[in-house]
């Protein structure tokens, strides 16, 4: 028996010893392989989204912001595990569950999210792992989902871009793609500042996919995007938007747009377009309404351009406000091409030429200035080049031919705002020169870049680019323009009770590309106004494209009233004091 016992024990010891061989194999020889598998098991890399910065108006009101929300994700592997366990327990009659199948989970989710449960179920069925069921779900709904305690459903933290003003300043702000890239306006031009840097962390997870925080390594916090502070004044923006809406109602134009600029700094206080769109619901956006006409449209400005001619003539002392030109009684042939006024005028002073907006008068003034000098003034006023340094997307350069490419009659057409293509922002910037003592301020729309804590990172100071005309000349031009907004002038409708207003109307026939001539039906009615006239606090351009209200198409009749209505409210908002002289007039 002893022999057999020894044999048995020997075998037992042998058996146990084979285990040590196996253990050495696993834990020493092949350990590396298993260490890798373990890392695959446990390692979890997570990206933490940075918050895209806000866009604020001049006084810090939020114009675009990022609201935290959740992408609803189904971890189908985990879900199936839990559901299988639940079914077992339910079958044993130990517990009751609301959901024991994927379809039931889908039904409950569908109910909360108002989505089709069948689609949700299909998405889950096809997936082996994480699948996104719904994107950018608000925290309210997410709360409901959490309360429902649906198995395997988790929320991925992300942000939704929100524009509290809806259509307000939509073209200035632009919008953001699904991938979080700014696609237009400031969202696009300042995208790199707004973005921020996503953070990430490397950590380990348990088998339930829950993070084990103690093992977190490489924890890099996200760096939230910078906030962009605009020069836009939300109140003025709002006023302008409302008045544009009213103008759309009254004149039924194809479009209407306006820019308000602070002349001494070049800051754009408001910029609005109709038609517009709501960047919050991009599903309904149509491409036509997305164009920021204020910077992208190149138009022949018509009579508002005459301000440039006047300024050039006065600055070069070719004429003064009282110099008289003969206006040919309404029709003048220059190089055998007729030029018409819409009234029949005889001798008019420059002041009156401005008031009546006589084409013939301005043609003659321009001939006095000469082609070269007129061209250099037009350039100095900022036409034929981009003004915004790309801060608003899609800005056009405009069209301005050099003098050697001018025709014989160009010197009679360009000074009255034809044969040149300008953008509305160029017009406003140029006219601000008149309001700002002759110096050209770089137009700015971004005032400041701040980090997420509100600390200033960059500041865009107002910048004088050049002195275009002498301050005295600017004052004279303003004086002349004040006459336009009078009973005798073309823009009586631009009056603002209690204030002295200067301005200039424009009524440009639009080029008909089919008939190759200027249209007699389609006009661009515009008005550029300064308030108050002696020391303008703001310059505002209103352009009404193809008004079809039937009543009128003149800038003085269509655009000037819009200016008046908006300017009154803006003056009120800016707390401007009515001028004493104007008060008297108003009292009378």
């Amino acid at each position, binding site marked *: *028996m*002893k022999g*057999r*016992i*020894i044999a*048995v*024990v020997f075998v*037992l*010891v042998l*058996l*146990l*010893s*084979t*285990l*040590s061989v*196996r*253990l*050495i194999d*696993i*834990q*020493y020889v*092949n*350990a590396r*392989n*298993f*260490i890798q*598998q*373990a890392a695959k*098991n*446990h390692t979890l890399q997570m990206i933490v989204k940075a918050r895209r910065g806000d866009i604020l108006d001049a006084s810090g009101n939020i114009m675009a912001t990022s609201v935290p929300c959740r992408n609803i994700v189904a971890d189908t592997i985990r879900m199936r595990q839990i559901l*299988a366990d639940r079914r*077992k327990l339910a*079958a*044993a009659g130990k517990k009751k569950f609301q959901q024991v199948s994927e379809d039931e989970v889908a039904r409950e989710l569908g109910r909360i999210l108002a989505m089709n449960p069948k689609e949700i179920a299909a998405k889950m069925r096809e997936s082996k792992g994480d699948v996104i069921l719904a994107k950018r779900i608000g925290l309210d709904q997410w709360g409901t989902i959490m309360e429902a305690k649906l198995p395997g459903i988790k929320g991925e933290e992300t942000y939704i871009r929100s524009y509290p003003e809806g259509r307000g300043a939509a073209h200035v702000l632009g919008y953001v793609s699904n991938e979080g890239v700014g696609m237009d306006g400031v969202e696009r031009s300042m995208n790199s500042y707004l973005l921020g840097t996503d953070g990430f962390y490397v950590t*380990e997870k*348990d*088998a*339930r996919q829950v993070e*084990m925080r103690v*093992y977190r390594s490489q924890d890099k916090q996200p760096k939230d995007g910078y906030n962009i502070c605009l020069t836009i004044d939300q109140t003025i923006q709002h006023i302008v938007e409302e008045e544009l809406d009213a103008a759309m109602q009254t004149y039924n134009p194809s479009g209407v747009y306006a820019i308000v600029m602070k002349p001494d700094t070049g800051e754009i206080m408001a910029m609005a377009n109709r038609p517009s769109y709501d960047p919050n619901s991009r599903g309904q956006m149509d491409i036509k309404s997305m164009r920021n006409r204020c910077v992208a449209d190149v138009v022949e400005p018509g009579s508002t351009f005459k301000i440039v001619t006047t300024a050039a003539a006065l600055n070069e002392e070719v004429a003064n406000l009282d110099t008289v030109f003969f206006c040919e009684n309404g029709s003048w042939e220059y190089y055998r091409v007729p030029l018409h006024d819409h009234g029949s005028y005889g001798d008019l002073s420059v002041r009156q030429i401005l008031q009546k907006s006589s084409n013939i008068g301005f043609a003659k003034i321009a001939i006095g200035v000469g082609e070269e000098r007129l061209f250099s003034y037009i350039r100095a006023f900022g036409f034929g080049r981009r003004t915004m340094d790309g801060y608003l997307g899609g800005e056009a350069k405009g069209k301005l031919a050099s003098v050697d490419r001018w025709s014989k009659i160009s010197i009679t057409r360009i000074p009255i705002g034809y044969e040149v293509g300008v953008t509305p922002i160029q017009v406003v910037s140029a006219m601000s020169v008149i309001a700002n003592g002759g110096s050209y301020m770089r137009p700015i729309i971004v005032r400041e870049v701040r980090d997420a804590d509100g600390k200033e990172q960059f500041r865009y100071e107002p910048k004088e680019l050049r002195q275009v005309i002498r301050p005295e000349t600017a004052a004279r031009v303003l004086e002349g323009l004040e006459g336009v907004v009078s009973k005798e002038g073309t823009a009586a409708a631009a009056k603002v009770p209690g204030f002295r207003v200067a301005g200039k109307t424009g009524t440009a026939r639009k080029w008909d590309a089919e008939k190759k001539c200027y249209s007699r039906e389609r006009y661009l009615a515009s008005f550029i106004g300064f308030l108050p006239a002696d020391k303008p606090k703001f310059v505002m351009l209103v352009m009404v494209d193809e008004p079809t209200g039937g009543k009128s198409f003149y800038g003085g009749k269509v655009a000037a009233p819009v200016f008046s209505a908006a300017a009154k409210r803006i003056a009120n908002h800016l707390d401007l004091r009515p001028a004493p002289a104007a008060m008297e007039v108003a009292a009378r």
Partner: protein
Amino acid sequence: MNHSRSASFWLSLAVFILLGVGIVMLTSASSMRDQSSLVRSQSLYMVVGLVAAVVMACTDYRVWGQCIWVLVALGAVGLILCYVPGVGHRIKGASRWIGFGGFTVQPSEFAKIVILLFLGWWYGKNTKQIHTFWIGFLAPGLVVGALLGLILFEKDIGTTLLLAGVTFVVWFVAGVRWHYLAVSGLAAGLLVSVVIMKDPERMRRIEAYVQKKTEQQHAGSPGGGKAAKDKHALGEDYQQQQSLIALGSGGPLGLGLGESRQKMYYVPEAHTDFIFSIIGEELGMRATLMIVLCYVVVAATGGYIAVMAKDATGSLLATGIVTLVSFQAFINIGVVTKLLPNKGLALPFISAGGSNMVACMALVGLLISVAKHSPRSVVSPQNVPFPQGGMA
């Protein structure tokens, strides 16, 4: 210098090391579960086990022979009670437990001791008739077979196979005729050989076959068989793979106590059947090899005690105990290291679980009792079984 005393010392030392590692690692491996209550109850089981060991050690192992039939009957009743509603407890679809006063006990663990005592007593009493068919083979075979049948009936295939294997070894040592062993053990012997052939795929098929059989027997009880089948469907392969990852990623030195990642729900049963893999992950190869060495020491000292025993009863009892503990350790570690197909057996002295702990400790006590009463032993019955100092 007394050899049996020395054997008892080394045996006790190995067991204490295993117990120590066990309680520390149970604390670590259950850190994400109901840790404090698990550790508390396991400590209690250890104390109960130690008391049982001391009692067994201090009692002459031959005493049990006088009441062997009572013990056999108790074992059978315990196993049958598992099916009595109100007493029997069903956990995870298996009826392996009986409960009283908030405690649950696994009667099959008690049956282990009974079977070993019975075989030792039977062959010690019938030394002359070992070669006969009736006395030497069939009668004890029927008694053991009845108990094993009850255990198999509980769908506790692991324990059944384990005890069948141990019985064969005891038969072999006792000197039961070869051809009886060969004939009777053909089917079961095949199973065991397959286990040793480490062919998980075939083993699984056989296992599934047996399970199917037992399921058919229990067609009336829907929960049980299905759960066992589901466990198969979910893949014991996954469990074992995770266990290997735990062992392997521990490397030679381990990740450090409490640093196991795999215990975080990757390795199922991390505090019971698969605790060895967590030990490997946290303490490394040095600890796993040391544990294996401890079991080798248990086997060797036990074997020594068996050889030195006063009578056949003592020898066979000691051999049976050593074989049982070694088999159980081998199968458990074999499963954890994926040498063997997945089979739920506790790791002696280490895995959480009260009945197994107490049973194993009682068996150690029996071994020491055999050692104490061996002819060359001069240890007086008053002496404690564990030597103090002066061993060297």
